[in-house]
């Protein structure tokens, strides 16, 4: 580990975060109209003039749309994670996010784990049987599953299990305490509520991981250290699962960082179709409702998580492959 590299990486991450704040500020100011006034006339809210003034002050709009003082207020709020009060839902942004986040983490976390557990070993098996019928079968079915339009898959699942068979709930309504106080009955509700969105996400995710893993396994198998391992008589199973798989995880770990973006933002379409009360649903509704405090706060938080996840990648790569020098 090199101190110069470390400092450079930290500098990069910090400058990215600062830049991100500026970009998000510009995006939200580019939206037409005065957000506070638009918010006032939006149908679902009955905000008073006092609230409007408070909102303008909170959003830094008091001195017009593009004033420097407002930008400074915004900048400070974002960097201190002070996302303010949301007049739309009459709660602080943090309260809203902390209500939705566990749902998203539960669904997408489970989906990510299941799709890795399904996809990665199958990718290794597919490379093991290279040139045989098994490989053709696995790879072809992964390609087919990967091409299934997720959004239509979700709708077909919904129509069949919810509308037709009526065995799945119309809307996931389990209270969050169901998970924090574990019991068999609670577990059953969580599983039935989560089953359909989970299937949608896992089918698509596992196929993609399988293809990535297979491609990177094949290129790792051509490397010298594999030949060395073979020469010294390491059994094939050990070569595949220990030596090659660890190295082949590098491109897959890049995908995992991308997955962090999903973990934070939720799978918007899946959450909306299955009425899953997660972050993706919340942000989408916030953008539609011009709910600025919520949209700004949530987008900043997501991009922050993604930037940090990408920043970690270099260190993870170095851990996976000792040849990579930091």
């Amino acid at each position, binding site marked *: 580990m090199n101190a110069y590299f470390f400092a450079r990486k930290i500098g990069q991450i910090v400058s990215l975060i600062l830049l991100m704040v500026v970009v998000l500020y510009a995006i939200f100011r580019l939206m037409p109209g005065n957000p506070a006034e638009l918010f006032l006339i939006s149908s679902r809210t009955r905000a008073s003039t006092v609230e409007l003034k408070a909102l303008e002050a909170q959003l830094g709009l008091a001195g017009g749309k593009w004033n420097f003082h407002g930008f400074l207020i915004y900048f400070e709020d974002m960097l201190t994670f002070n996302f303010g009060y949301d007049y739309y839902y009459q709660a602080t942004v943090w309260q809203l996010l902390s209500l939705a986040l566990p749902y998203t983490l539960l669904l997408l976390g489970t989906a990510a784990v299941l799709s890795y557990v399904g996809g990665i070993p199958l990718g290794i098996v597919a490379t093991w049987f290279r040139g045989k019928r098994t490989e053709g079968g696995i790879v072809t079915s992964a390609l087919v599953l990967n091409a299934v339009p997720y959004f*239509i898959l979700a709708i077909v699942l919904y129509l069949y299990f919810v509308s037709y068979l009526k065995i799945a709930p119309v809307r996931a309504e389990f209270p969050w305490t169901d998970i924090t106080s574990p019991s068999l009955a609670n577990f059953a509700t969580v599983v039935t509520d989560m089953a359909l969105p989970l299937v949608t996400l896992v089918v698509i995710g596992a196929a993609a991981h399988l293809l990535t893993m297979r491609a990177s396994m*094949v290129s790792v198998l051509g490397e010298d250290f594999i030949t060395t391992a073979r020469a010294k008589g390491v059994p094939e199973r050990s070569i595949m699962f220990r030596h090659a798989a660890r190295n082949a995880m590098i491109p897959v770990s890049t995908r995992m960082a991308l997955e962090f973006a999903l973990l934070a933002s939720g799978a918007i379409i899946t959450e909306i179709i299955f009425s899953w009360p997660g972050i993706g649903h919340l942000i989408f509704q916030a953008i539609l409702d011009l709910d600025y405090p919520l949209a700004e706060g949530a*987008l900043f938080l997501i991009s922050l998580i993604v930037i940090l996840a990408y920043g970690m990648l270099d260190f993870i790569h170095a851990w996976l492959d000792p040849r990579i020098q930091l």
Partner: protein
Amino acid sequence: MQVPPPSPVAAVRAGRRPNPQIAQFKRTLFFLRRNTLAVIGLGILLFFVAVALGSFFYPAPAFVMPQECGTLGNIANASSCICTYQIGTTPPGAGCYPVQSVSPSLIAPTESLHPVSLGPLPMGSLSTDTGTPYFYNLFAGMVKGSPWSLGIASSVVISMSLIGMMLGSVAGYKGGILDELIMRATDIFLAIPGLLLLIVILATVGSLFSSLEGRLAILIGAFILTGWPIYTRIVRSQVLVTREQKYVEAAKASGARSGRILRKHIIPNSVYPVLVQMSLDIGTIPLSLAALVFLGFQIFPSIQFPEWGNITAESVNQTFLKGILTYCATDSSCVFPWWQIFLPGLTLFLFAISVSFLADGLRDALDPRLRR
């Protein structure tokens, strides 16, 4: 029966020196042809292209204004009516439309799209909700939509890859401050997940235009803005490898300027991973468009804009979002309008699978280690 790959050796012996790029292309084609899946993918893709070309001679989809057949309790012509109502409400609900005059397997009674939730959002002006229900021939719509879909998807993918090649090669070759700037810009765009970024862009500038051309331009621009960073990163990492090659050194030694080295040596030799990424992306564009329209970001109604994704979303919205279940006057005539989901779904699926088979074959053909 194993046919050996075409070798340049014979040609060189005969005194002809083949262009190395053409030789490489021929070799790629050879390995592509051996891959059954890739050939199937190419076949489906060519079929779509043929449909797109033929669609100009195909009659436009019929829009039939339905006559109401009365409310559910009081249906005028019982056997030929399909009634729709919202889940959770008791019939009679919305209108009933006659289905027998036209083949039910092709024609979906599609009401003009009702936006999900618009409020005072700028996107509100994007909906052209006339409130009139009409019959829409799905099959004719899909045929008519093929040039739109193929055109939009390929123009997006080609522009993304051109931008990526330009910025990525400059960043990778020049390095320094330029590299740093371009890469940080890609980081910013990559930090917001794709669909969310599309939504934010459309919500920000989506209401600038009201014409079909203007909205189409914004849509394509939004897709390009979301996709270019990946191409830039791919090209950059490829260029970092190629610029260390001997032939680049040779070109430099013979006094070539950096523009010429980039154009003649570096870009042509890093183009193949871009090709693979392009064929992976092109299949997802109609699907993303469908997702956008489904979420309420309607570009134009499918009468004027019969793009696959657009039709899919309108058709699916009708069966799903409005919570429609078919309710028929007599139980025997009760058919769930499965074709409304099946036909567009199948089209999107076939398109995506053709390009992903092709991409997989291309990757195998280009990378000698992956060849089976």
